């Protein structure tokens, strides 16, 4: 009976939140006390499969009408249909290309403007003082709220669409670059000065490289905002694009097209995020290591 001498230390209650209740010894090869360790690939695949199964279940059993939620098969069928025949007389890939051009074009512009601006804000109190209020002012406003203004000012053409996405990407990228400037350790800066560096050289060889991880993270966050804003940008006077496809399909209650469009946008965004993570591993393998 010795192993039951302390009955409370080996609780038999293994609820869903069991891992929060009690500290346990780790397996060899793991580090004790570090939360969130472990590979999640299998679980993630399982999760996706589970969602699709649930989706299939509730639709094929007729629990939810196809008008509200068509089944996976119907959505896939719609995808094949749009792929082959296009949507509103425009080929599917053209919708993708137009939306991609808007989002990535705006993203590129936002990086070209936002990264130097953020770095300048981090380096100079003057520039920070000038640009902090406008950025912080518009940043929390939903793009839909200033979309009308964009249209009044810049018309219903490409400019207002790209500008809307540009603005939604600009703020996170600029703020990320700005805080990245603070990443360099004071010792790194002092050491460089003591080796004879000029202020410019410290910026070029110490501040900028050490800001890179945060800038890349900010770019990942920024492109996410870009995709979020895409549908809003294609609300007015668009005749092409994935956002347009989703919106106009919804007006005709073509729910399968709506869901297909959402999934296509998600897949493109996710693929680009994977690419960015790959770039991160290649460009800043030292991130968080020193």
């Amino acid at each position: 009976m010795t192993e039951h001498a302390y009955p409370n230390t080996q609780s038999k209650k293994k609820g869903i939140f069991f891992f929060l209740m009690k500290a346990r010894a780790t397996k060899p090869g793991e580090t004790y006390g570090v939360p969130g360790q472990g590979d999640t690939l299998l679980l993630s695949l399982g999760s996706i499969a589970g969602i699709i199964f649930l989706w299939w279940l509730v639709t094929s059993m007729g629990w939810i009408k196809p008008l509200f939620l068509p089944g996976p098969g119907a959505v896939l069928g719609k995808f094949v249909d749009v792929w082959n025949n296009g949507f509103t007389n425009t080929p599917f890939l053209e919708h993708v290309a137009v939306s991609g051009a808007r989002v990535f074009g705006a993203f590129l512009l936002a990086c070209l403007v936002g990264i130097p601006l953020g770095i300048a804000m981090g380096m100079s109190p003057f520039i920070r003082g000038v640009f902090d209020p406008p950025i912080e002012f518009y940043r929390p406003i939903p793009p839909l709220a200033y979309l009308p203004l964009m249209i009044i000012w810049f018309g219903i053409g490409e400019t207002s669409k790209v500008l809307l996405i540009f603005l939604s990407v600009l703020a996170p990228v600029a703020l990320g670059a700005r805080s990245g400037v603070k990443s360099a350790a004071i010792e790194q800066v002092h050491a460089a000065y003591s080796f004879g560096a000029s202020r410019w050289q410290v910026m070029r060889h110490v501040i900028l490289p050490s800001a890179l991880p945060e800038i890349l993270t900010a770019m990942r966050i920024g492109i996410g905002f870009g995709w979020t804003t895409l549908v809003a940008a294609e609300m007015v006077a668009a005749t092409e694009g994935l956002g347009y496809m989703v919106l106009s399909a919804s007006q005709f209650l073509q729910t399968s097209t709506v869901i297909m469009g959402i999934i296509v946008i998600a897949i493109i965004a996710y693929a680009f995020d994977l690419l960015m993570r790959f770039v991160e591993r290649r460009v800043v393998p030292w991130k968080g290591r020193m």
Partner: protein
Amino acid sequence: MGLNIRQASVIYPSADGRPPVEALRKIDLEIVNDDFVVALGASGCGKSTLLSLIAGFLSPSSGEILLDGSQVQGPGADRAVVFQKHALLPWLNVIDNVAFGLKLQGVDEARRYEIARGFIKLLGLGDFETSRVYSLSGGMQQRVGIARALTCDPKVLLMDEPLGALDALTREKAQELILNIWSSTHKSVFFITHSVEEALFMGTKLIVMSPRPGRIAHRFDLPFSRQFLGGTPAREVKASREFIALREEVLKIIFSDEEAAA
């Protein structure tokens, strides 16, 4: 010639309604030829402020700091600094870290790699030229830091607790390595440490500093590093009666400062 500090004081201006802080009061110090000057003292005694003065990160409120007769104006490669940690650049490999100072000075690539390789060998890092610095052990990272400062060919090498983050065994090895390099390069060194044993073993001159206001309270000339370089094993030097007696004397001074502060 060499480094001369004359009557240097540092007073931080008052802030938040607190009175001004006198960080250093009238420091006189000479670091010439192959002096190895070690600064020791309770925390808050101004050791690091003194190093910042010499490095040129900070200008004195009064007094002057002369290097080879001319006033120190800001930091420069003639006073390269080795820090305790966090000072290497993780995006560069070992040789690019070591050659970093030369790159800043516009030395062309072939020449700077040639110089850097020499110091990498000197510090025993020959097999790690292309290693990522963050994959190295703490002791090896510190050797990269020292090699990097030496490539700048400073007139005075400044070391701010360079061995403070190392484990005891690595630390003793690193002490011997630094002494050997010092004797082969004939550099003036200014070295800050918290370890009394390290201070006595490494220095030719010891300054013991006292806090509030930071000042040099005691000065000692030390023979021990020369004994080691003359062939006496390090542990034997550190276990000698003379060494232990001085160690206890210095410890007593520092403890009395700590108690006065507490």
